Structures are given as C-alpha cells and as structure tokens.
C-alpha cells in the first residue's frame, strides 16, 4: 500500500499506539481525582503539554487540549469575539473556519473574506485596507490543506499589529505542523490551532495555543478542566499520544522536511514528463513540500482516484472533509483561478516523512498505465 493522503490523516506511530494503550490500561485515572491514579494521570497530562509546547516553542501553560483541530478553530474564533465586531479571514480556509464565519455573518458579524492569488496567497494590500478600528480578529491558515500554500503569517501579523493594536490573530496551524517549522513566539501569534492526527498522532485530540495573557472565553463549559478554558474529562490516552507524536516529530525535523522536499521534487520532475499536467502547488517557497496538487487534463479526479486505488495507492480529490457532498464542492481551486477543466482533474498527493522515494516511482508507474486508458475512454 502507498499512502499519499497524509493531509487527510496519518498513520499513528507505533510509539504513539503504545502510549495510548498504556494509558487506557494502566494510567486510566481521572486527572482531576485526588488519589494516586489521578495524580499519575495528571503527571502524564503535564508531560504531554510540555512536549507539544516544545514543538511550537510555546510555554506549557499556553496550550489547551481539545478534541481536535475543528474544535480548536471553533473555540479560538468564538472565544475571541463579541457581538458586532469586524472579522477578517480568507476564501480558502478550512471549513471549520469558513463555515463558522458564514454562520457568524448570518448572526450579524461583519466579515471580510480576503481573496487569494494564483499561488493561494492572501492579498496583503486588501488586508491592510480591510483592517478597521472595529476589527477584532483576523483568522488565516498557516498552510492550506489542498494546495499547500504557506501564508506570510509574520507579515500578516505585523500588518495587523501596525494597523490595530486591539485586533488579534488566529492561525489555523493544523496543516502547518510537521510541514513547516512552527514557532509561535517568533510569529507572535495570539491563537493557533493544532491537531494530532495530522502528525502521526491519534484522532480525536488537538490543541489550541493561547498566548499568555489572552482573555479567551471558553466554548465548552463545565467542570473547569484546562484552566477553565475547556471543560470535560481529559482524553488522557489521546493527549499523551499527541505528546509522543509531537516529541517524535521534533526529532530531526529538518531532516524530515528535507526528505519530504526530495519526494516532492522527484515527483514533480517525473510528472513534468507527462502531457496535460498542471502543477497547482509548485516546489517553491510559498508551497509546503508535503502537498502536491496536480491537475490531470481530460481526466476526472474521482475516476483517477479509483484507478489508483486498484494499485493500492491512496490519494485525495479536494479535501477529505468536503469530498462527500456536492454542496461542499471544492472552493480552493476556483479561488486560485483554476478553470473547470483543471478543477475536475485535480488530485492531491500528500506526503509524510515516512513515505519513500520508491513509492513515488511506483505511483508514477501506475499513472503511466492509467492515464492513457482513462483519457482514451474520455475521448
């Protein structure tokens, strides 16, 4: 099997599975309990928080564990704003940001949606012009899940700070972790969402980085866990698994990123030998190497996906979260100006450092066999 769908989800590392299992069997106490089992659980919780914090250069106390990236995004946005305030986001955000903003718009919040250019980069001039006195929150994703665009987050934050000291910046970092180096202090970001299952951690766990001193309102109310910011018994096996995944990712991260870069370069070089191929996420500074989005002309993406499946090669059309419903059609590719011809044949290959060069070769070999057949059928 060749798994090139690592932006949809990743395979948990064996050390992660081991940690999760151990927590479920041995360290099962409720971290809020006063007895030894509870205290053991609390220790594990603390260690996991330190590990995830280290990966993004945060202080442990600045991390709030959540049930995943979508919850972190919802929590960050809803917790930062008050009625009537102006909000800014981009047109290519993840649905957990975009759909929420659409709902907020219906509830009466003024929202500005920033356009993106051919590379998927937000328009900084448009951003500068959009920031008003009443602007409370700017929410942009660090790395786009479909085409891998790396937004100029430092510039965006600098711009926001210059224009309005009261405005806060939330960054959806779900796809950034493991794909680019993330340092919240260097970025000077206020809020950043993370998800474990995109970095070979377990599903059902994520975190929100909340800059020290930020008075965020909680979304989940109740028992007061996570310093009153996120109630609910802690998912300790998940959290602890997240910690292990973060620690593993941090080891030789640069070498991992270099390996993924090599995968992408190799793949692109070979793809360029094919006719009717458009690379939507070139190997350059503004696209993450882990994501390779390619339009195959005269082919339907879904048909190609199925054909690759016969070779046990797993890829994605659009993003996994929006793939099922027609109502949730791809909006990222149109936003960068792709025409229908290139949208319908778009495939996303997404890599992890665990992928190998020979997997790229095998995928290419499969494409050489499949494409002529599919194109013949279509013609």
């Amino acid at each position, binding site marked *: 099997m060749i798994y090139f769908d690592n932006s949809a989800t990743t395979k948990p590392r064996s050390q992660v599975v081991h940690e999760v299992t151990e927590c479920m069997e041995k360290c099962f106490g409720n971290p809020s309990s006063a007895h030894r089992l509870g205290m053991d659980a609390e220790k594990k919780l603390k260690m996991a928080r330190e590990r995830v914090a280290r990966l993004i250069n945060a202080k442990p106390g600045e991390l709030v564990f959540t049930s995943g990236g979508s919850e972190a995004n919802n929590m960050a946005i809803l917790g930062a704003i008050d009625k009537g305030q102006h909000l800014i986001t981009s047109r290519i955000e993840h649905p957990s940001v975009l759909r929420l903003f659409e709902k907020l718009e219906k509830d009466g919040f003024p929202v500005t949606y920033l356009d993106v250019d051919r590379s998927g980069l937000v328009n900084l001039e448009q951003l500068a012009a959009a920031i008003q006195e009443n602007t409370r929150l700017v929410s942009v994703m660090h790395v786009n899940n479909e085409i891998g665009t790396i937004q100029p987050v430092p510039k965006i934050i600098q711009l926001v700070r210059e224009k309005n000291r009261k405005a806060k910046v939330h960054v959806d970092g779900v796809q950034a972790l493991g794909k680019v180096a993330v340092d919240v202090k260097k970025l000077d970001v206020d809020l950043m969402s993370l998800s474990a299952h995109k970095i070979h951690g377990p599903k059902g766990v994520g975190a929100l980085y909340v800059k020290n001193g930020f008075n965020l309102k909680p979304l989940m109310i109740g028992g007061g866990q996570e310093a009153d910011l996120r109630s609910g018994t802690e998912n300790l096996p*998940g959290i602890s698994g997240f910690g292990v995944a973060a620690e593993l990712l941090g080891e030789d991260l640069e070498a991992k990123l270099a390996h993924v870069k090599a995968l992408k370069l190799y793949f692109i070089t070979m793809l360029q030998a094919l006719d009717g191929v458009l690379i939507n996420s070139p190997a350059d500074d503004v696209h993450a190497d882990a994501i390779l989005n390619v339009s195959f002309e005269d082919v339907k993406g879904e048909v190609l996906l199925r054909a690759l499946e016969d070779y046990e090669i797993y890829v994605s059309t659009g993003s996994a979260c929006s793939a099922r419903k027609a109502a949730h059609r791809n909006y990222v590719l149109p936003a960068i100006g792709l025409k229908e011809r290139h949208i319908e044949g778009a495939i996303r290959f997404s890599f992890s450092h665990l992928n190998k060069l020979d997997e790229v070769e095998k995928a290419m070999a499969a494409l050489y066999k499949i494409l002529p057949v599919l194109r013949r059928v279509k013609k």
Partner: protein
Amino acid sequence: MSTAKRIYMDHAATTYTHREVLQEMLPFFTDYYGNPSSIHQFGREVKKNIDIARERVAKAIGALPEEIYFTAGGSEADNWAIKGSAYANRKKGNHIITSVIEHHAVLHTCEYLEKEGFEVTYLPVDRFGMVSVEDVRNAITDKTILITLMYANNEIGTIQPIEEIGRLAKEKGIYFHTDAVQAVGSVKIDVKQQNIDMLSLSAHKFYGPKGIGALYVRKGVKLISFLHGGAQERGRRAGTENVPGIVGLGKAIELASGKLDESVARITGLRDKLVQGVMENIPYTRLNGHPEKRLANNASFCFEYIEGESLLLNLDLKGVAGSSGSACTSGSLDPSHVLLAIGLPHEIAHGSLRLSLGEINTEADVDYVLQILPEIVDKLRQMSPLYEKVKG
C-alpha cells in the same frame, strides 16, 4: 514497585478501558487509520465501522442509528444539547428548567445562557436528592422550551423519575434533555418509552475510552450545531471522527448492555454490603442519596467531624482510591453543591466520601475497606476537638 493492595473504587470518576474494547480499537490505530470522509476504499472501510458503532449505541438506548451523534464526551454533549436547543428555539420562548444538583457541564451552561437573556429555573431537590415531578410541572410556563435534568446524580447516585418527567414534557410540547453520563451502562434506558428528546452519554464511565461520547437527538428536534465546519455527523458535528474512540464506545456500550442485569445484581450486592458495614460500624455517619432509587455502584457517605480530603489521603495510603464529591470538584475547597442541596450543613458536607464500585471489585475488596475505614475515621476523629466534646 510496591506490591501493596490497590483497590479502585472511583468508577464514577472514570473507568479503565475494558480489554475487549481496547482490542476492538487497536486495528483502527495500526491498520484502518484512514479518514472516514475520504472517498477511497481506505476511508470507506473505516466509515463502515463508524456506522456499526452508531447502531450499537442506538440499540443500547432504544434509539435509531440516525439519532446518534458522536461527540468528544459528556460535557460536549451537554453543552451542545442545551445551547443548541436553546438558540434553535428562542423564538418559541426563553425559559429553561433544570435542577440545583446537575453536573457543572449543565449548570454552568445554564448560567451562561442566563447572561445571554434566557431565564432558568433551578429546581430544588429533597433530602434524598430527588426532583419532584410536581415542581417541574409548576415551573413550566408558556415560555419554557427545555427541561434538562440528569438521569442519575454523579455524587450521590440518586435516580430521577425520568419517565414521568418525559411524559410531562411531551404532554406540554417541551424538549426534554437528560444528562445520562452516570446512568448509561448502569441502568436500562429506552429513550422512546421514556420520552427523552436528547440524552448525553460518555464512554469512559462504562469501560470505554476517554475523549468520546454521544448525544442522542430525537428525529425532528431543532438543534443548532455546536462545532461548525466539515460535513461529518451528517453536517451536525464537525471534525474528523475519532474513529478508534467511536469504535471503542460502540463495543463498550454493547458489552455493558449485554450484561446489565447480571452486573447490576452483583454490584448492588457488594454495594449494599459496603453501605451496611459502614453504617453499622461507624457512628455519626450518613448515607447520601436515595436509599433505593440509586445507582447500583454508588455508595456516598458523610462522616461527621472529619475532613473528606484527609480521609481520601489516608485511604489512598492504604491503597484505596475513592473520591470526595465528584472528580471535577476534588481540587476545590468548597463543599459539593449537591451535598449542600440535599440539606447538609457545610461542616458535614466537608466530610464526604464517595466509593463507586465497578466490575473489578470483589467481596474481598469490600471486606478490606470495611476493615480499614472505621480505623481511619476513628483516627481522624481523635484529632478533632469537636469530636472530643461530643464524645465528652
């Protein structure tokens, strides 16, 4: 490692994950790790298993599979049910009925809604922790849109007259939500027969994994989403599904409901022995909660003239894990809101101990607790000047 006795009697706080549950979950970490929303075979296979889990949960509580929505746990289910139905029905009214002994996920959510312009009636309970159906009836106004009452209390175990309240709510056309986090796995539940419109449950209270729960939402109930985003859970709850968790929840609830009668009978026997032994051998002690209408595993006491915290510590040193109040309030110095609500004065509420039994507990465990508890209580009381006077 010490080989000293370790007895876990804090199952109401959380349970370990059952071996069979864990076994069922593991392949979804190691082999079937695809994203269920992916359209390739690798994702679709995973999706099938979510559907199986959904059917298992539905079957256990008498619901339809399409009425089950997976959440990150009981607190999310409570938050969603209450906020989601309140906002969705605001045009109909703004009044909510709950009780003073609810879990904080319900209480604090209701308090939040009060700030948002809703009106909330917090019903009192009697000395056993029971809500009166008449009180519910009298609290209903033409603005009432939601009744939210817990199925069974987490601290004192009292089981509310759910079916009667459900009937009343249905008759009046008001939504009825019940926080059944402590009840599922310990009590036979049938949401249709009991006229329950929404029900919250959490896997880690019945030998399932942490970080996963569900909200049952009767077909037709108007509810606004709590987490917005991707189209997961039929567009009502966004976020990549916690597949191993969901699979584990399905297995755990199937196991729990399969042996419900047998397990309740055994645990009730142990609990009764524990309660009887404590009440007979330790003076100045009260049993909290209803004498009969209570969860099989719950034994909640107040020992006068001692501090619950020191009692817990001493029990822990002897290898017994229990709780004062609930796990969530263990770190707090305030006495439990539940114990105060059943009329206990502060100084007595401070001396509380909850022992919640589970399937690993044996008669020998109960004997051991009955052997050490009177000694510990006595030792602590010897240090209390008040106790000296009373004995005096």
